């Protein structure tokens, strides 16, 4: 009823364009979305944590005290040093070292970088596949729609791990080389991309079904635009809201999937460790008392996933006008 309770406009019946003249940033700070973000302390905290992790991942080479991939900086003699507050620690290694003498803190920074990069690229790939197929299915309808959605149904019955194994196997068979290390990264992104597209496709198809019957799409058809143009210019911008929400929540899921796969040994090798690889390495030493090798990557992973998830939950509520 009073959907847009804007301020009294009867003195100047039309807005005078001040809205446009203030910068984008000023408008963002003043928007409802920003207000709902700032309203919840927990969301602000989650946003801050996510942002901090992103910064760390982005600038890992600059802020990490060591480069754990540089053999010149890694000495076996430093292996399995505890964190500095424990007896027998080395002051150079804040959080101790792992089994090969790598600085835990640096390994964590680099692992975060790898995990987030794989998660992010995986999400991007799955969104790309899912949104494209969803748009086509929703707009074309009929048999194309039925075909795409049945593929999606079948896809749902495969867990990500199975797909990763499958992709891994296929890639190796194709390359016929033993270099798992070179292909591991790509295989992970591809596996995650292929595992998570269904949700995007379903959501986008649903929104597309609604949007394609709106009159602005009819108007575009009347001026003779072709279907791809209509999809790209008119429909896509109007179905992206929910995609953003899914992508955020899926980022957490993708990072977990990557960690799971790496933990199981299907994912990244110890030479380019992700958080999952670090946990796997640490797992072996858990019972010999070197808890820090597994604990720090584990805690980092948990905090990252919770923060991103909370951000996604907030975004979902904030973009859903019915919940406001």
């Amino acid at each position, binding site marked *: 009823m009073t959907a*847009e309770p804007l301020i009294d406009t009867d003195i100047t019946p*039309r*807005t005078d*364009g001040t*809205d*446009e003249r203030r910068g984008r940033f000023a408008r963002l700070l003043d928007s409802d979305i920003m207000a709902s973000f700032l309203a919840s302390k927990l969301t602000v905290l989650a946003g801050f944590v996510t942002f901090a992790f992103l910064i760390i991942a982005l600038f890992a080479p600059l802020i990490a005290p060591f480069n754990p991939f540089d053999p010149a900086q890694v000495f076996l003699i430093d292996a399995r040093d505890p964190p500095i507050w424990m007896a027998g620690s080395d002051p150079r290694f804040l959080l101790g070292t792992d089994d090969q003498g790598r600085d835990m803190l640096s390994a964590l920074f680099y692992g975060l970088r790898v995990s987030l990069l794989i998660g992010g690229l995986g999400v991007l790939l799955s969104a790309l596949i899912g949104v494209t197929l969803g748009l086509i299915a929703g707009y074309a309808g009929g048999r194309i729609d039925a075909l795409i959605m049945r593929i999606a149904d079948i896809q749902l019955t495969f867990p990500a791990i199975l797909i990763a194994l499958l992709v891994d196997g296929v890639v190796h068979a194709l390359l016929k080389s033993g270099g798992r290390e070179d292909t591991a990264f790509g295989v992970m992104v591809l596996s995650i991309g292929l595992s998570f597209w269904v949700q995007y496709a379903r959501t986008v198809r649903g929104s597309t079904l609604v949007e394609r019957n*709106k*009159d*602005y799409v*009819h*108007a*575009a*058809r*009347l*001026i*003779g*635009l*072709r279907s791809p143009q209509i999809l790209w210019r*008119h429909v896509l*911008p*109007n179905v992206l809201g929910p995609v953003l929400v899914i992508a955020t929540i899926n980022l957490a899921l993708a990072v977990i999937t990557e960690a799971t796969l790496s933990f199981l040994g299907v994912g990244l090798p110890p030479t380019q460790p992700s958080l999952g690889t670090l946990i796997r390495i640490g797992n072996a030493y858990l019972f010999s008392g070197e808890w820090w090798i597994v604990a720090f990557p584990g805690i980092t992973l948990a905090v990252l996933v919770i923060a991103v998830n909370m951000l996604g939950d907030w975004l979902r509520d904030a973009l859903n006008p019915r919940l406001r």
Partner: protein
Amino acid sequence: MSEARTLVEVEGLRRTFDVSRPWLTRMLAREPQRFLKAVDGVSFDIKAGETFAIVGESGSGKSTVARMVVGLLEATAGKVTIDRFEIRAGADSVEARRVRRRIQMIFQDPFASLNPRWRVGDIIAEPIIAFGMPKPAGGRDDAPSPEATRRRVGELLGLVGLDPVDARKYPHQFSGGQRQRIAIARALAAGPDFIACDEPTSALDVSVQAQILNLMRDLQEQLGLTFLFISHNLSVVRHMATRVGVMYLGKLVEIGNAAELFARPRHPYTRMLLDSVPDLSMVGKDRTPVAGEIPSPIDPPKGCAFHPRCKFAVDICRIDVPPLIDGVACHLAQDGRLPDLSS
């Protein structure tokens, strides 16, 4: 009307929708396929410069006719021509594009007909970019410069009573009436001569409706536009139309000159419609409304579709479908057997 050239011709237009349940369900339940005859053999002409209105209640198929006429929906049978060029849904030849630029549409809901993510200026510029700048008859399309496009958008906004600076805003910054003005500006952008208007004011408030109706009549006069005007509101049709077709369950039951039809409706359904419009002149008066409602178009009554609600119906009405002869599709009216309205 000095000019009486026929601009749009609609001939034997038909549209059937498949409303069957999914194939597997149907097979399991041994159900036949079911079809809905939304439009069942509709023909009419629209002369250049006139407003032809189609009135009808929900389910009459009036909007389906409009969508087929502009080429948004494929006809099951029949054809639509504008200046003898056939309009086909989905056709993409040079010819088809030339025809298409002459046809535009104004939609009912101004909140759904404008892309919420586009600036108003871009919305109005889209047809100009797609078709080129409108030129006096016979001009060739050429790609308009951004400057010329911007100027033209400004002109169009002025034409519909908005400010050229409004081009920079988004649709949500406007009221319903202003949005409908924007939709009209977009419809005019490519310089069409025929515009189909599907319930253009039924989502608007009365005082705003008057503004839009006045604007449409002004534009028609100024630009020599021809309108196909779809509405359920008889008073609005009375105000806009020069000729009127009345639809009931997919068929035209009466067609004629507006003044004539409103003064002396011939078909019993038209009479009923005119009788039930709530009107300011009815203060304190009582009337006897007609009983019954529109039957389902999936399973329409046999014979004349209106016979179950018609107080004059005789045997032949229950058997034979009356053809549209001399502007009315009613056995009794054709035979002059209907009582005069005065009685």
